[in-house]
């Protein structure tokens, strides 16, 4: 058998050749930091020896447990609201009413607004002299401003975070759900209508089951982002409400202890991996199952 011609041989290696630059970049600027992070987290800063001292520091710090609790609590409150709202808005736009394109544009606007900017936007509404307080005082519902910010009011601060996150990041969930909704064939819905299905029946037996992969993707993405929540919290609450990424930032920039900061980063990454795994195994769509 003779060798294939030169052109074919080059062709065979072309995809690898095209992928090589990106792959080497990922190896160096993703792979290296990953290894380095593990190394930093497991090194004793004073002796340079392998040690779990950084994790001991972290586990003995009450701020860590607060941060863990707050990060999860925020995710648990914010994400269900976002999924619920996003689903309603997606169904609304999918009716293709006149003007639905305008609404689509408006709803996706917050996608481009950074968490820091969103925090400042909601601060202008909820500040002691913000629009909400001024409005409520002037219609005589309250006589003194409601305080949302400051350590003494951190339960209210938590509410402010929820309001900001729901406003800012519902759009991400919406985009995923809307994309999934558009892929559901109109034939199914029309067939259901022929048999006299109500809207609720269509939602329960056709739309939601077919939307399951999109819902799964939306949930996963939102949860991963929620675990990294930082900008909003830092701008609105600082360390009044510790979160995992905020603590990592604090140890990195204020304490200048890269080792403990890396330990935080590793914990965020580990939780992300575990949650991805749980989502992917438990929420797997069952296309084959018929009932």
């Amino acid at each position: 058998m003779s060798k294939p011609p030169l052109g074919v041989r080059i062709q065979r290696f072309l995809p690898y050749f095209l992928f090589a630059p990106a792959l080497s970049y990922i190896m160096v600027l993703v792979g290296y930091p990953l290894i380095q992070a593990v190394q930093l987290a497991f090194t004793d800063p004073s002796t340079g020896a392998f040690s779990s001292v950084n994790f001991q520091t972290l586990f003995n710090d009450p701020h860590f447990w607060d941060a863990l609790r707050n990060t999860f609590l925020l995710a648990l409150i914010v994400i269900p609201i976002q999924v619920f709202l996003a689903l309603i808005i997606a169904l609304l736009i999918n009716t293709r009413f006149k003007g639905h394109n305008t609404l689509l544009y408006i709803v996706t606007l917050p996608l481009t607004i950074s968490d820091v900017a969103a925090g400042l936007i909601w601060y202008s509404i909820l500040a002691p002299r913000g629009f909400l307080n001024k409005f409520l005082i002037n219609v005589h519902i309250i006589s003194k401003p409601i305080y949302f910010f400051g350590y003494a009011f951190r339960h209210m601060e938590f509410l402010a975070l929820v309001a900001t996150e729901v406003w800012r990041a519902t759009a991400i969930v919406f985009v995923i759900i809307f994309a999934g909704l558009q892929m559901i064939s109109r034939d199914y819905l029309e067939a259901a209508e022929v048999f006299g299905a109500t809207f609720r029946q269509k939602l329960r037996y056709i739309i939601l089951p077919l939307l399951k992969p999109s819902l799964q993707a939306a949930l996963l993405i939102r949860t991963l982002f929620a675990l990294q929540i930082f900008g909003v919290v830092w701008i609105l609450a600082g360390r009044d409400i510790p979160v995992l990424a905020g603590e990592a930032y604090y140890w990195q920039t204020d304490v200048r202890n890269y080792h403990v900061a890396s330990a935080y980063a590793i914990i965020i990454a580990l939780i992300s991996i575990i949650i991805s795994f749980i989502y992917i195994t438990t929420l797997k769509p069952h296309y084959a199952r018929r009932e």
Partner: protein
Amino acid sequence: MTMRKEIFTPEKKQQIYRLLLYGGAVIVSVWILAPIALIALAALSTPRDLYDIHKVLPTSFTLDHMYKLLFVLGAWQALINSILVALLTIGLSFLLGLPAGYALSRFIFPGRDTLKLLVLTTRMFPVMILAIPLTVLYIQLGLSDTLVGVALAHTSMVLPFVILITSSIFASVPVEYEEAAMIFGLSHAKAFLKVTLPLALPGLAASAIFTFIMSWNEVFVAAILTFTNRTLPAHILTTALASPDYFKFAAGLIMTIPAMIFVFIARKYLVTMWGITLR
């Protein structure tokens, strides 16, 4: 089948349906738009109106806070830095990501699935774990506190997205066009440059904007890797807490405007694009 007495006539039902539809649309629009309008009002109102408890909406306006924030408090330089970092990130991530995306969309080769999986997993890593160790590496390389350093980190953040987006854009250009061009004697590279690339250009432009927004909005990495050469979000994050309210509001407005302009330009593509990358 049983006959059920309808409470509403079909016309009445239609009316209620329309009312719910448009009512819902109006409520959602106000919920999204009002905060943006309010930050603009807050950023432009005079301190007297801002702190006057009896004035819900300001009536006198000034550009003073925007001007001072930009030119006295260093936000202008930070804004320029942000743009430079974003442009560098676009350039670098496209230089690396475009060929990879093309390879994924046009070739079936051993290891393709593994590479795709690698790209997908890279996307899942939190930026914290990428950025914190980089501070140590950057000190050794002399890249700490440089815009190039931030752009390199942003590139590793956006590269997986760029690969996935460009591969789906190239996949939407029929491979037959490229093959036809090659039959007429063009080389593969020429066929790509003269046929596929022009057809993919609008999508690529939109994905460049997507990349721009990701870099423009990123704050954790930028704040950790710089001390003086801050990008805008990092600059605001580290100075806002000590600033009076009107500067905070001005900062919120300045950060919001450019991204909104970009989305307006590329709105047709962006929704599908986010759909692709987030799946």
